[in-house]
C-alpha cells in the first residue's frame, strides 16, 4: 500500500514537472501560459458536457492502452499501436464494404472480428520477426505505423474512396446507419459494454491466469522464465496478437461508432497517447481505465481549444509529449524523500 501511494505520488510529481515545462514552452511561443492551462482544464474537465466527451475519447484509448500494457508487461516494446489501430479500422471498413446490404446482426460482429484480426495481424509480423530472428520490435513496429498510415491513405483515396467527398482529406464512404455502433457522440450501451468486457477480460487475464503471471515474470526476468521451461516466444507472440487485436478493436469502434467512416490520417496520435496511458497507469488494467479518462478529457480539449478559446490544438500534443518525457523517470531525490517519510512513521 505504502509503495502504491509512493508510486502514485511520484507519477503526480513528474506530471506536474511536465506541465511546468509546457508552461515555459507556451510562454516562449508567445501565449499566456496560465490562460492556456486554464483553457485546457476547462476544455478537458470543467465545461458543460465534459464527462461524456472524456468518455467518448477515453474508451478507444483505454482499449488500445490495455493491449499496450500487456505487451509491455511481457517485456516486448510494441510501439506500433497506431498502425494496428489503423489496420483494424481498415479491415473493418473493407469487411463492411464487402457485406454491404446484409443484416446488421451479421455484419456488426463480423466487422468487429475482422477489425481485431487486422490489428492482430499487423502486430504479429513484428512479433514473428522478433521471436524468430531477434529483429528489434521498436523499429519494426514504428515502421509498421508509417506503412499502415500510407495503406490508409491509399485505401481511402482509392478502393474505398467516397466519390462525393470533396474536402482535402480523402475518406471512405459513410457506413450505413444500421451498422453504426453509436451516433457521432461516440457513447452507446454497446460501446460501453465492449469497453467493460475488455477491462474485465484483461484484468482476469493479467491477474488470474497462468499466462498473466508468466507475462509479468517474463517482463521482469525473461531468462529466468525461459529456464523454468516456459515458451517465451509463444508468450511473446500471444501478447503481440492480443495487443494488436485490442488496438484494432479501438480502430473499429472509432470507425463504426463516432466517425462512421475512415479518413486518411485520422487520429494520428491515438497510439502514442495509448502508450502514455499504459505507462502513467504503471501497466495496471484498472489504472489504465482511470488514466484513459484523464487523457480522453485532454483529447476532447484539443477540439475545444481552437473553437472556444482560439488557442492551437498543438498545446495538447505538447502536454502529452512532456508527460512522456518524464513519465518513466525515477528521481533519487524523490525516492529519498519517500523513504524518509516511511522511516519517520
Amino acid at each position, binding site marked *: 500500500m505504502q509503495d*502504491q501511494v509512493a*508510486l502514485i505520488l511520484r507519477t503526480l510529481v513528474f506530471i506536474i514537472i511536465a506541465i511546468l515545462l509546457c508552461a515555459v*514552452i*507556451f510562454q516562449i511561443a*508567445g*501565449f499566456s501560459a496560465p490562460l492556456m492551462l486554464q483553457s485546457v482544464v476547462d476544455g478537458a474537465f470543467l465545461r458543460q458536457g465534459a464527462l461524456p466527451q472524456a468518455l467518448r475519447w477515453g474508451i478507444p484509448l483505454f482499449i488500445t492502452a490495455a493491449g499496450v500494457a500487456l505487451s*509491455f508487461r*511481457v*517485456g516486448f*516494446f510494441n*510501439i506500433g499501436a497506431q498502425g494496428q489501430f489503423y489496420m483494424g479500422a481498415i479491415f473493418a471498413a473493407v469487411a463492411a464494404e464487402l457485406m454491404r446490404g446484409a443484416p446488421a446482426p451479421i455484419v456488426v460482429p463480423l466487422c468487429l472480428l475482422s477489425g481485431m484480426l487486422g490489428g492482430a495481424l499487423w502486430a504479429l509480423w513484428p512479433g514473428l*520477426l*522478433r521471436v524468430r*530472428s*531477434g*529483429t*528489434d520490435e*521498436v*523499429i519494426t513496429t*514504428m*515502421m*509498421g505505423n*508509417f*506503412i499502415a498510415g*500510407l*495503406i490508409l491513405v*491509399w485505401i481511402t*483515396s*482509392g478502393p474505398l474512396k467516397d466519390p462525393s467527398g470533396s474536402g482535402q482529406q480523402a475518406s471512405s464512404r459513410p457506413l450505413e446507419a444500421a451498422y453504426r455502433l453509436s451516433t457521432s457522440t461516440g457513447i452507446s450501451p454497446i460501446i460501453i459494454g465492449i469497453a467493460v468486457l475488455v477491462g474485465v477480460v484483461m484484468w482476469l487475464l493479467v491477474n488470474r491466469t497462468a499466462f498473466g503471471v508468466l507475462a509479468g515474470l*517474463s*517482463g*521482469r*526476468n*525473461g*531468462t529466468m*522464465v*525461459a529456464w523454468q521451461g516456459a515458451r517465451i*516466444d509463444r*508468450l*511473446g507472440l500471444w501478447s503481440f496478437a492480443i495487443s494488436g487485436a485490442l488496438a484494432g478493436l479501438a480502430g473499429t469502434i472509432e470507425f463504426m461508432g463516432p466517425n462512421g467512416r475512415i479518413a486518411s490520417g485520422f487520429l494520428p496520435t491515438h497510439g*502514442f497517447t495509448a*502508450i502514455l496511458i499504459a*505507462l502513467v497507469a*504503471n*501497466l495496471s488494467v484498472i489504472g489504465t481505465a482511470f488514466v484513459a479518462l484523464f487523457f480522453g478529457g485532454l483529447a476532447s480539449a484539443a477540439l475545444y481549444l481552437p473553437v472556444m478559446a482560439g488557442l*492551437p490544438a*498543438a*498545446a495538447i*500534443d*505538447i502536454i*502529452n*509529449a*512532456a508527460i*512522456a*518525457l*518524464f*513519465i*518513466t*523517470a*525515477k528521481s533519487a531525490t524523490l525516492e529519498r524523500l519517500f523513504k524518509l517519510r516511511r522511516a519517520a512513521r
Partner: protein
Amino acid sequence: MIDLIISILRSGTPLVYVTLAGVIAQRAGVWNLGLEGLMIIGACATVLGIIVTGNFYVAMAIAMLLCMLASALLWFVIDRLKANPIIAGLGLTGLGIGGTALAVQAIYGSLSAVNAPIGVPRIGPLFGPFAPLSIFVLALPFVVFGMWVLLRRTRFGLRLAAAGEHPFAARSVGVNPSRMRLVALLAGGVLAAIGGAELAAGSLNLFAQNMTSGRGFMAFAAVIFGAGHPIGATLAAFFFSVVSALGIRAQLSFGDALPHDLLQALPYVATVFGVWLSGKLRGGLRAAGGGFGELRDN
C-alpha cells in the same frame, strides 16, 4: 541520370547528418529516438531564424543552440532521472513536432508553410549541374570521414565507446560515462540541427508543420542497419534515399498505374528489411523478453 543523383543527394543529405547524430549517441550507449524532434526543431529554427535575422549563419547558430538545449534536456531526463530512453526520446520528438507547430501558429496565426527568402548557401556554378546543391552536401564526405576518425581513431572515440559499452570499466579508468553521454548528445544536437536546416533550407527554403515526416526515425533505423558505424550508417541512410528516389521515379514514369501512396512506403519496408538483415547477420536480440523490466518497478 544527373537529376536522379541530385535528388538522391538532396533527400539523402539531411538523413545522413541526422543519422550521424544517432551514431554518436549510439556509441555512447543512448538509443536516441528524439532525433525526429531535434531535426524538426533544427528545420523550424533555421527557417524562422533566417526570416528574423536575414542571415543564414546566425539562423544556423540559433538552430544548433536550440537543438543542443533540447539534447541537454533529453540527457537530463535519461541520465539524471533514469527515464526510459525510448519513451523519453518519443516525448522529445512530440515536443519538437508540437512545439514547432505552436511556434509557427503563434507567429503567423495559421499552420500553412513558412517561406524563407534565402536558404543554405549553394555550392555555385563551379560544380556545373550540381550548382543548386547546398554546401552541406559538399561538406558531407568530410563530415562522415571526420566522424569516422573521431569515433574510431581517437582517444575520445574509444572512451566514448567504452562509456557506451561498459560504463563500469570506463569509470574504472577515470572516464565519466554520464559526461560522455552528455557530450555525445550535444554533438548529436548540432548534427541534427544541420540535418534539419538542410531539409528545410537546402533546396525549397520553407518550413511546414510536421515536415520531417518520420525521417528522424528512418535515421535511427539507419544507425541500427549500419551497426552504429559512421560509414555503415551513412551507406544505410543513402540506401533508404535511393529506394525513395526510385519510388518517386517509378511514380513519374508509370503514373497512376502504380499506387503511389504504397510506393512511398518503400523506404519504411526497406528499413524493416535492413533491420531484419542486420539482426540476422549479427545474431540479433536474444529471443527472450526482458530488457524493459525497468518500466515496472514495484
